[in-house]
């Protein structure tokens, strides 16, 4: 049997780490805790974790700086950011800077455990994740993340800003079951009372613009009662 995946949990709030560490151990991970960015950088060298759960706001060296320093060194250990900011642009930026995923505080610990497993499954060791690629291709579809534009057969498509953010999140998380609640949290950052319908409306817009038939989808598949999945094969392109 393989050894348990090694996790490094970085947060300056001991009230959180004291609760989360035992939870994550029970969920099947070897967990170590670091209380700030500097301690995290040291632990990463000695412990060589398989994945880092990194809080953004910390004293001394904050999470984004840790992320930046690691990625600059060419260290592509998967990282899930625990974000505090409500603005979607900031969250999208976190992905571009090299985070594999992010989850907004407060969160359900079970959701965090599920995300960790997904990121570990998706990650290819030592390789940059899809989330940092500036351009992604899936068949005839090209998503230019720096320009925030999408092209179908080299022709630019007209998407509303939210649909663009949604597409961006979906192509950077291919093959994952994305529940409406998760998409809402990740893309909108808001907990809408009518939110799940809002997600459906934007998905419908994406399908219409991309010419994707829900009955025989090329890009977005509906998982009845659960959410959506981006099923196309996504690759980095220049």
């Amino acid at each position, binding site marked *: 049997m393989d050894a348990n995946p090694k996790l490094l949990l970085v947060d300056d709030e001991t009230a959180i780490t004291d609760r989360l560490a035992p939870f994550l151990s029970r969920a099947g991970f070897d967990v170590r805790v670091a209380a700030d960015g500097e301690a995290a950088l040291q632990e990463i060298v000695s412990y060589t974790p398989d994945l880092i759960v990194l809080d953004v706001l910390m004293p001394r060296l904050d999470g984004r700086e840790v992320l930046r320093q690691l990625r600059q060194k060419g260290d592509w250990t998967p990282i899930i950011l625990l974000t505090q900011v409500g603005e979607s642009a900031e969250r999208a930026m976190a992905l571009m800077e090299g985070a594999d995923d992010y989850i907004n505080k407060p969160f359900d610990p079970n959701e965090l455990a599920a995300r960790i497993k997904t990121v570990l499954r998706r990650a290819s060791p030592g390789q940059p994740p899809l989330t940092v690629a500036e351009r992604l291709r899936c068949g005839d579809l090209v998503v230019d993340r720096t320009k925030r534009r999408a092209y179908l057969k080299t022709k630019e498509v007209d998407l509303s800003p*939210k649909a663009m953010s949604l597409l961006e999140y979906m192509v950077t998380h291919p093959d994952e079951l994305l529940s409406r609640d998760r998409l809402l949290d990740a893309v909108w950052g808001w907990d809408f009372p009518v939110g799940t319908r809002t997600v459906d409306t934007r998905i419908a817009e994406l399908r219409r613009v991309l010419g994707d038939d829900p009955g025989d989808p090329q890009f977005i598949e509906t998982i009845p009662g659960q959410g959506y999945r981006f099923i196309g094969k996504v690759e980095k392109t220049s």
Partner: protein
Amino acid sequence: MKWWGWLLSLLPAGIGILIALLATNEIISDPILFLRGKLAAIAILMGVTISIITIAATQFWIYNQRKQKREIRELRKQASEDRRHFLQRLDHELKNPLTAIQAGLTNITYEPLEDYLANEVSAVQAQVLRISRLIADLRKLAALETTPLETTVVNMAELLTEVVSVMKDQTNLEDRQLTLILPNAPWPLSDVEGDPDLLLLAIHNLLDNAVKFTAQGDTIEVRAFDDRNDIVIEVADTGPGIPGTEVDRVWEELYRGEQARSIPGSGLGLPLVRAIIEKHGGIVVLRSRPDQGTVFSVRLPAI
């Protein structure tokens, strides 16, 4: 200063010059007055002096007014910034404890619990969720002040149909009559420019209130029409109405009216509606009669 202001200020100088011209051309007599000055010279001198003083005084007054307005604007801006920072800090300070509580609760429920403990835990979980929602709403309010709108063309007729159908699907209307009235003739409702998700949220909050504050047998009407360059959306109900003393206060953050105490809600629904509508360059007002009902009226610029 307006043109007539200049005219009035320069009038004394004009009169002075006129008297001087008339006197030197001997149309009127030009006697020597005090300080051995002739009427013509004294008239010019006085006229011009009065004009200069008037102009200087008005300019000084205008400058002061502008300064005051600028100061008020800056104070308001400062206050709104302070409030935003406060909300951000509050949001941040509440998130960490909530994350810890949620993780702690999950740890407790890892082992099967006795019934009464399980009940207690799920009650605490529900309250944690309630606080999470509240801070999410506070964050929404703060974000609305800072984040620019992501706008697109919004078909309000479709959006209203959507909100009403969501409400019919998700809520047990229990014999309340909910109708949507949209114009078809001579032309359909105009589009607006805005963020469809925010507008949906605003209208949903209004309709949700209407449902919450009505009982079986009541009527709720959602209607929309064009009015000159705007579109007007009204959400009307035959509920208990809002007492006159509360009509202005319902827009205040976290304010809960007498009748609202027994009804679940955060006290942020209406402030959010107002923030969203005003961010779209619109206004929202309410009319209410005790025991007859309430109408919320949203006015948005049409395209």
